[in-house]
């Protein structure tokens, strides 16, 4: 990796940022997803209308990666502060938001996300305390239910890509097919899983995620080896363009403290 002019985390953030289009209403979670979002705004989507789930509007981070979605690094230049009910309810759960970016501790072949806990032998019939407690759903469940589409960002490790997640914190396509329709979700579900190794997208009918792109530094075989289910490969799978110099420059303007160039840390 050391010979690349960018890190895997930066490639992931840029690939995720490419999922956002100019003029859209978008909600960013904390950490990498926020960098991806503000990168898009700084690069190809200057009219992206962004917010965080705290109801922070019009802001761009100063001084580095915000510690949270209401961090002072984000509150220093907002045009509007409202509240959670507004951002997550009126604008996201309502279906007004075009796209959201969320993270995952575990994701499965139908794009269901677990950020709640890990149970070594599965959860079983009766709820019990997890062996490893994670961060809970936060606003991701609301985004997964309501946003027009959802981009999931996750570090590509086999333990994170499970045939079935231990706990569905935020719904993807549930059991696949049109299972979401049972619940009447206004949001369309995850459109992409963007990882440190490549990009997965759902098949139109089954909604099973298949590999549609690998990075210049990764390969189909490497990605399959790091996926916990038998990952199928799209017929038109292709190499994803590396960061352009303009993209990289824009990302690094946003990521002023170089969070994406440091070793990955745990977090939401």
């Amino acid at each position, binding site marked *: 990796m050391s010979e690349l002019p960018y890190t895997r985390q930066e490639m992931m953030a840029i690939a995720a940022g490419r999922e956002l289009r100019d003029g859209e209403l978008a909600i960013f979670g*904390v*950490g990498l997803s926020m960098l991806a979002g503000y990168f898009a705004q700084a690069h190809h989507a200057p009219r992206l209308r962004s917010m965080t*789930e*705290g*109801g*922070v509007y019009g802001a761009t981070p*100063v*001084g580095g990666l*915000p*510690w*949270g979605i*209401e*961090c*002072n*690094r984000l*509150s*220093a230049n907002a045009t509007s502060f409202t*509240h*959670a*009910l507004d951002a*997550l*309810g009126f604008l*996201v*759960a309502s279906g007004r938001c075009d796209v959201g970016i969320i993270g995952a501790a575990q994701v499965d072949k139908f794009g269901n996300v677990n950020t*709640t806990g890990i149970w070594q032998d599965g*959860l079983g*019939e*009766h*709820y*019990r*305390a*997890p*062996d490893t*407690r*994670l*961060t*809970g*759903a*936060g*606003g*991701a*469940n*609301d985004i997964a*239910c*309501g946003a027009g589409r959802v981009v999931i960002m996750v570090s590509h490790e086999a333990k994170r890509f499970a045939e079935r997640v231990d*706990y*569905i*914190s*935020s*719904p993807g396509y549930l059991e696949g097919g049109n299972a*979401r329709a*049972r*619940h*009447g*979700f*206004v949001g369309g579900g995850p459109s992409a899983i963007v990882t440190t190794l490549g990009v997965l997208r759902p098949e139109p009918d089954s909604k099973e995620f298949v590999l549609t792109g690998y990075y210049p530094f990764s390969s189909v075989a490497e990605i399959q080896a790091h996926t916990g289910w038998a990952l199928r490969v799209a017929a038109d799978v292709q190499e994803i363009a590396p960061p352009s110099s303009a993209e990289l420059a824009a990302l690094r303007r946003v990521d002023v403290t170089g969070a994406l160039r440091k070793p990955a*840390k*745990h*977090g*939401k």
Partner: protein
Amino acid sequence: MPAHRLISLAEAVRRYTRDGMQYASGAALPIGSDAIVFGRELLRQRRSKLHAIFHCNSQQLNLLAAAGAVDKAECGFSGLEVFGFANGLRRAVESGQTALEDYSNLAMALRLLGGALNWPFVPATVNIGSDIQHRSAFAPEDYPSTTKIPTVTDPFSGREIGAFSPLRPELAAIHVSLADPQGNAIMLGSEWSRFELSRAAGKVILIADAIVDGACMLQFPNLVRIPDILVEAVVYHPFAAWPQSSPGWYDADEAHMLHMNQALATAEGTAQYLNEFVYGVNSLDDYLARIGDDVRARLSATATGFLLDPFRQWIKTPEQVAALLAHTPETHA
């Protein structure tokens, strides 16, 4: 109106809290505004068996849970965002000491909205279909759960959606940027769900980074989102959210956020942290001294400082606040 509603932190905890109570924090997300000092005082007064209603976890819940003071908790998010997992809460949950009931962040806001409106239930179009609906830590044998987020039928379309249970916590300790002595409050930055909480809670205590003259509120009535008629008492406490941030006042203390969370990962570390930063702290001056003059100066040099400029002329000095506090207020009718 009473002369004022200012009381000390210790008196607020003595008067308005009890073991086993449903206690809510009025905060702005995991690492922002929160009345963390209220949690510290709860521990100094050895309150226990709390049922914590935290829209999101914060270092307050992390600390309370680490200290073993929380039997039940309900949260939308239980981490510390970029600061990682909340080790104290995590340890309490994994050991089974704290039963943590999961919801999403919107669900918590809606449940407070429903509490404020005294509704019997709140329509749920989120959390349904996921394990948040199916699994209940408070009723583990009920699977798939029929009681946590039951279904309700829309009478217009016949469509089934979910129903959230409203929240009406017994007490809320709400962190605000500015309060006047009567209890009118201004919050800077995201409100998160403090507005709804102030209406849903049985009683409200304000923990304010600063006290302003009432004239400030008359100049900015649209910013007074918590009027005095809802407030039992006001506690003056600079750096009330430390090591978290308070927009306008101070940034998050990165080093202490990490130190505290690391300490709370073990029983030993927690005991040490409690001795150093909770039990051993005897006064506001002592508290501020432990943060350290240089640290406070650095945190106060926040890029959000300009947000306070319109209000600075009305901010009371510590001496002026002390003079008010010297006169015991009447009890709120």
